[in-house]
């Protein structure tokens, strides 16, 4: 079955329902008062079909990392639900979450921070075996070495420390650790952002191979649009805690309907000078607002080239727009029409 068909068939492995996560902002001192909330994730719903990759794109303050951690159960959600394989795993206490931890794993962004520098690599990769007691101590070494080989590491380096590996190799160690318990879903939080360009491709290929071999499902979070396009089947674009556009990747990339998506795509630096010169440049004004005090109505409206009065009052629902595929959803009152040039656009003249 092609990836697209799998996505459409709605064999859903992960479903998130209106997830909200607010962090309280407290005054300092012995008795603390809550003076506000960081509205990191403000009502996000999404689904991931089994065996596919959902790409989650967003900039700073979009809430994508917080969302990932809520799904993984590392942070308790303020409200909303997370369903894994049909079961409700929202805010489960540690013991009841334990069996799900085998099925949901994470790969982290920082190859230098996500591995304990004082532990040997074999111990790090074998940690899941020890914690869940699935493999007796005598057999662990062999299993770990199998994993190391699978991800492209030399199994003889079992007793080395993370400091003795390069960034790309450390990410592979992280991947091996995530694979140990044969999970169903792997949440990849910017797994290649901190790596050199030529190593990124190695790790991306590895992730693709593993997905094929083991039937893995990925939630792939990144800020690099080209990388996301390469790995994903479906894409969700987040802005300031909400999803502004979602759908299969080709429609979203080729005919973005939300002005933010269009701006993001125009800002994506492509390694092609002629394409770079020719593309529509949508330069947004201002900076990303703080999630403590987000704008009213549509959160993007203060920076949006198409904003009108309605946008500051009413939050647009995430829904399909006329002329789009059923699965292409946009949260915008005045979506971008095909071929439309946005107000601040214009070809840049080379001097």
């Amino acid at each position, binding site marked *: 079955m092609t990836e697209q068909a799998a996505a459409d068939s709605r064999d859903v492995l992960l479903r998130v329902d209106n997830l909200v996560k607010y962090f309280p902002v407290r005054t300092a001192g012995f008795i603390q008062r809550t003076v506000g909330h960081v509205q990191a994730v403000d009502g996000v719903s999404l689904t991931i079909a089994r065996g596919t990759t959902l790409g989650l794109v967003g*900039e700073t303050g979009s809430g994508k990392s917080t969302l990932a951690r809520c799904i993984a159960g590392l942070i308790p959600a303020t409200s909303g639900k997370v369903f894994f394989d049909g079961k409700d795993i929202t805010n489960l206490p540690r013991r009841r979450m334990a069996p799900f931890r085998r099925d949901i794993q994470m790969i982290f962004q920082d190859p230098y921070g996500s591995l304990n520098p004082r532990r040997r690599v074999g111990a790090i990769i074998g940690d899941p075996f020890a914690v869940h007691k699935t493999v007796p101590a005598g057999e662990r070494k062999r299993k770990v070495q199998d994993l190391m080989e699978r991800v492209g590491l030399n199994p003889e380096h079992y007793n080395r420390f993370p400091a003795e590996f390069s960034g790309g190799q450390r990410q592979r160690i992280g991947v091996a650790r995530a694979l140990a318990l044969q999970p169903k879903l792997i949440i990849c939080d910017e797994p290649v952002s901190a790596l050199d360009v*030529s190593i990124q491709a190695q790790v991306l290929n590895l992730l693709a191979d593993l997905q094929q071999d083991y039937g893995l499902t990925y939630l792939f979070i990144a800020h690099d649009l*080209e990388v996301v396009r390469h790995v994903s089947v479906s894409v969700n674009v987040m802005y300031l805690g909400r999803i502004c556009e979602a759908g299969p990747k080709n429609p979203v990339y080729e005919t973005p309907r939300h002005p933010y998506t269009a701006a993001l795509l125009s800002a994506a630096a492509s*390694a092609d*000078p002629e394409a770079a010169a020719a593309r529509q440049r949508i330069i947004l004004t201002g900076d990303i607002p703080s999630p403590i005090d987000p704008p009213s109505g549509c959160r993007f409206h203060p920076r949006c080239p198409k904003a009108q009065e309605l946008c500051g009052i009413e939050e647009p629902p995430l829904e399909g727009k006329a002329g789009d595929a059923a699965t292409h959803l946009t949260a915008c009152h005045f979506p971008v029409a095909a071929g439309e040039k946005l107000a601040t656009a214009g070809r840049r003249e080379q001097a």
Partner: protein
Amino acid sequence: MALLDVADLTVSFPTPDGVVRAVRGVSFRVEPGQTLGIVGESGSGKTVLTQTLIGLTPGADITGTAVFDGTDLLRLSEAQLRRVRGARISVIFQDPLTSLHPLYRVGWQIAELIRAHQDGVAKVSKTEAQQRAVELLGRVGIPRPERRVDDYPHQFSGGMRQRAMIAMALALEPRLIIADEPTTALDATVQAQILDLLLRLQQESDTALILITHDLGVVADIADDVMVMYAGRVAEQGTKHQIFYEPHHPYTKGLLESIPNSSVASDRLRPIPGQPPSLINLPAGCAFHPRCGYVLDRCVIEEPEPRHVGTEGGQISACWLPAAAAGVGEAAEELREQVVREGRSGAAVEVAQAIAANPEVV
């Protein structure tokens, strides 16, 4: 005459484990008003190169020359360098949060810079310097500069802080700005704003810009000329068009092929196998040969010197492949394969087998 002419620059660091040869014989020129993009990954030496130009590498062994506007920067004393820094050459760093002093107001920092460089001939008063700071903040697109000038760095967002750094870099109207990964820590939309700003300012004031980055997209956007560095040496130099569309050096080609590119849709990327080498223990011959798909016997023994390649002129590559083997066309590829067939019978065979055996990891 070139604004900056660097010839055969070599920088080494003695460490307890051996000598780290960070930069090995790099030569390049920057013309007034031009933008040079220096591209490289970790260990390429790009940051050490520019830090050495302005004297920020104490304790290093440095040889070669770097003539800026008639003076050799490498022969200047610390006092002389201080007069050059900020005034004639300014630097924009990657993380503006750590390069701006957190305890002083932004406007004050800019004003202080202006006043510190006065020559005694034209004394700039505090008010005038402050005025200039406000002007500069406005020029870099900070809204309501007369109010923001009294803010502290932590009150600025990431993009605004970078703009403030650019304002500081422009304050004394330098002839050359060195920007070291200026947008790497920024979001995509903010990055677009900053690049746009840099280009506009540069065109307004005819300042030359050296932009160091690992992001080929940024270079494709605003550079005129491009220099690709690998393991402390220049792998390839040329105009933007030549580097992106007619690459000669296999490393350049490899980089371009390993980036996900919407115009070339495929399931698998073509990464460069292996890792960048240790700068203490470099491979013999060409530093890139253990990872090169076109390795020849000669490459294992002799390190190639940069020479002219390609059809237009001005393109330089440090590679043993013939000068005509540039670009991604069929003819060039056939030429390469022919040379490989003829030139690979000894040591290179093993290297090629090692790469083929484990294409992802060498």
